[in-house]
């Protein structure tokens, strides 16, 4: 195997895992939000691929291109529901995309980040599908290949419905299954309480053991209490 073959082998096994995760979310009724602030043609291409498949007879899946000029976090915080998917095609330096991705666990959404060049930090998204190239045109061509394959493999997964119902974690470390506290995003603060968004929906949590948080902060909550502010200065 050449170095290129090894990179492609890694990429395709990442694509396989992401596709199964997508199929499970779609199967359970999730919607896919497609974002690409710098390259709107990619978000629109991903969305139309899933909504209106090129192969007759394949089911139309709910995928939405988020307009490039939207405030990503503000829109997705309100519109994306638990069980949804956020797919981004964006460089690692895109701060709006990074901010949306790191809220994935608090919102209860599956996150997929497609890009090229320097990688985002580890854990920036649940699925990081990354190309080694720094050539912007080559990257753009290969992004199309990647989301075409994502679509094709997702539909292959639909032929294995027994595996779609399974909710076994595909990840080595799963924050939702662990006991260290659930991630939550602060929507509003009222005295020693905060209204937060978690994977379970909207909740009111006690904030008396942490410094007063701000809307947009990410907290860890445990048994009705905020125990850590991940965004504390």
């Amino acid at each position, binding site marked *: 195997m050449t170095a290129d073959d090894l990179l*492609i*082998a890694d*990429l*395709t*096994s990442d*694509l*396989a*895992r992401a*596709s*199964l995760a997508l199929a499970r979310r779609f199967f359970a009724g999730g919607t896919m939000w497609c974002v690409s602030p710098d*390259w*709107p*043609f*990619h978000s*629109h*291409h991903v969305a*139309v*691929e899933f909504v*209106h498949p*090129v*192969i007759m007879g394949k089911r139309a899946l709910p995928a939405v291109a988020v307009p490039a000029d939207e405030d990503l976090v503000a829109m997705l915080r309100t519109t994306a529901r638990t069980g949804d998917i956020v797919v981004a095609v964006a460089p690692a330096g895109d701060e709006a995309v990074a901010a949306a991705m790191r809220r994935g666990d608090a919102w209860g959404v599956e996150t997929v980040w497609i890009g090229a060049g320097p990688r985002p930090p580890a854990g920036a998204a649940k699925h990081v599908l990354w190309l080694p190239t720094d050539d*912007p*045109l080559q990257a*753009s*061509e290969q992004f*199309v*290949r990647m989301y*075409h*394959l994502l*679509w*094709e*493999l997702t539909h*292959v*997964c639909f032929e*294995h*419905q*027994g*595996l779609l119902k*399974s909710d*076994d974690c*595909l990840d080595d470390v799963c924050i939702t299954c662990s006991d260290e506290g659930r991630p939550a995003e602060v929507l509003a603060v009222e005295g020693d309480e905060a209204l937060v968004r978690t994977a379970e929906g909207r909740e009111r949590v006690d904030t008396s053991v942490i410094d007063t948080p701000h809307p947009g902060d990410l907290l860890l909550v445990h048994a009705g209490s905020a125990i850590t502010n991940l965004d504390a200065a």
Partner: protein
Amino acid sequence: MSPEASDFLYPFIEREETDSVSLLADLATSAQGKWAQSTRLRVDTLTALGFQIRTAATAMAERFNAGGQLFAFGNGGSSTDALEFARVLTRPPWGTPVPARSLAVDQAVLTAIANDVGFEIVFSRQLIAYARPGDIAVGFSTSGNSDNLMAAFAEARKRGMLTIGLAGYDGGRMGASDDVAHCLTVRSDSVHRIQEAQAAVAHALWDALQTELRQEGAA
């Protein structure tokens, strides 16, 4: 899971249903095959179309140098290819920016024309409004058969525009039409693989255009 009467006919289903590891391995193998297929089609297409791409780029450079602008269009995924091509032309990673835009992005114009007349003239109607004889029309289609592209090419030809089409399969109606002066056809019968190779053709066209623009500039 309750046993079904027909289970004995399909003993393998039960095993597959619980074994995501083997499914993931199959998916990865299938993706690797398709990735390699796409890479081969890209190379074969650029080799086969090399001369046509350079010829089309020369004609484009003449138009741009004379003050022409480019209109790109397509339907569905191809509309996003048109938008990407227009973006590369106007905001290139290097080289000379040239005026270009997609006719598939203004939802007010698209829905007005489609609602009042019909979707088959959404691009041709815009060319009537915007285009001048020295301009360039570039249409993207995987089938090569879209009605609204054929209408746009006919209108463009009538108005003295340079016409370039990116098609798939055997070129379809675009490949056979005199209205499409340069038809760049990706010989494949998979819509996805065609689109992937068309992205490479569009980039090669842009690259060849940059070479032409530099030579013109030096002359």
